[in-house]
């Protein structure tokens, strides 16, 4: 009665929605610094949320920019929640005090992720470009937990933190986060410009994931999430997912502040606009999504025994660095020559 894989879904399960593009931080790896600052008026946004709910989408995760800088975030979230959508958010935590946490709860937020890139305050503050941001991010976790909102910590793995898995886990446990998301480094926006300073080598990624997987399996009371399809090279995959390779364009979709739809936040290819287009139609007919769902092995992926599970790894990273979605993930540590 249960199937191990899913057919092509009629609509995304979740939408990552960059509700604005304003930000009070200056992060070294920001993917959206150069994105549009055009924002949809509230009533237009409401109509779009209705369209998304009608299509059968389960959840909306607001991001940005910093969503708490959006003056109407609470009412928009309450509207989305009223439509039956599960509402969550990613924030840097700077503006999230006790009063705001109460308001978020009232608006229907069920989960909020706080970005923290190091267990060391100075390292995080320097990386994020704002002194005191580490302390306020940790405080935000406490405020959220006190009102019963589930919390997660989002950490973009890069050169400043890749060897501090144990310390990051200890920090997450100490501050009561339910989940610790280790996000793989994307080469988009400033992440591409600062790639040489921040990105790891393929062998360093291998070591990171080896250790992270050991920790993931051993730690109690904390869900350590690894969203990188290249962990298939180590014989692992996201246990909760029914799709192989990247989930982008298969389970999730990204919407920008101006309504433009892209396969994910790190792939700058516009496939439609939620104001103008039918979501299910775009989801079904987009040639870009079709290509992402039916990747073809090239280079060292050809003949690789792991390709069936990793499907070339992160499509966004391959596209950003090679211009071809089908190229092998640049983080892949597999053999350079295809097996015969």
């Amino acid at each position: 009665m249960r199937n191990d894989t899913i057919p092509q879904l009629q609509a995304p399960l979740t939408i990552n929605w960059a509700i604005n593009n304003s930000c009070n931080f200056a992060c070294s790896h920001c993917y959206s610094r150069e994105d549009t600052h055009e924002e949809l008026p509230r009533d237009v946004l409401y109509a779009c949320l209705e369209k998304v709910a009608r299509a059968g989408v389960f959840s909306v995760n607001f991001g940005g920019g910093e969503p708490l800088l959006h003056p109407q975030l609470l009412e928009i979230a309450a509207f989305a929640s009223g439509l039956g959508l599960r509402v969550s958010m990613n924030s840097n935590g700077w503006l999230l005090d006790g009063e705001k946490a109460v308001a978020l709860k009232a608006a229907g937020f069920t989960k909020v992720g706080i970005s923290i890139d190091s267990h060391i305050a100075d390292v995080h503050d320097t990386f994020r470009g704002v002194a005191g941001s580490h302390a306020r991010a940790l405080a935000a976790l406490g405020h959220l937990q006190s009102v019963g909102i589930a919390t997660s910590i989002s950490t973009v793995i890069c050169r400043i933190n890749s060897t501090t898995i144990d310390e990051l886990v200890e920090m997450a446990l100490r501050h009561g986060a339910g989940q610790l998301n280790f996000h793989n480094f994307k080469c988009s926006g400033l992440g591409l410009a600062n790639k040489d300073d921040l990105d790891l080598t393929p062998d360093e990624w291998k070591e990171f994931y080896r250790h992270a997987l050991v920790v993931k399996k051993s730690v109690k009371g904390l869900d350590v999430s690894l969203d990188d399809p290249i962990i298939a090279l180590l014989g692992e995959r996201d246990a909760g997912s029914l799709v192989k390779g990247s989930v982008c364009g298969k389970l999730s979709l990204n919407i920008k502040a101006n309504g433009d739809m892209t396969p994910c936040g790190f792939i700058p290819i516009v496939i439609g606009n939620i104001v103008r287009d039918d979501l299910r139609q775009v989801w079904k007919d987009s040639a870009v999504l079709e290509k992402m769902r039916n990747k073809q092995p090239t280079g060292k992926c050809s003949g690789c025994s792991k390709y069936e599970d990793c499907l070339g790894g992160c499509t966004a990273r391959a596209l950003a660095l090679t211009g071809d979605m089908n190229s092998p993930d640049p983080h892949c540590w597999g053999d350079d020559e295809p097996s015969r």
Partner: protein
Amino acid sequence: MPTIHRNPNVMWREEDDALAEAGDALARGEDAGEIGTAVLFSGGTMLSVNYLGMEIWKLCDNRTVDGIVAELLEQFEVEEDVLRTDVRAFLDELAVKGFIVYAE
């Protein structure tokens, strides 16, 4: 006998195209067991279920196993013992994943 309840935190939907495909297959007397007609999602865990699985899921609304089996026997031509075994196994899997709860 305990009653069975869906976890309200589980998000779920039927997939229209897959549902139509399964309906067509069943109408032709073919097996639709491999066609995932619905998706269930909770806490980072996703399940794809076939037509029968979905019907069981929808019946997890304060009924007992006997109640669910009785309802399904009206819809499907299958031996009761076989159906009961399958239903129990599926419900146990849902319970382990936290998608349903048993209540006395």
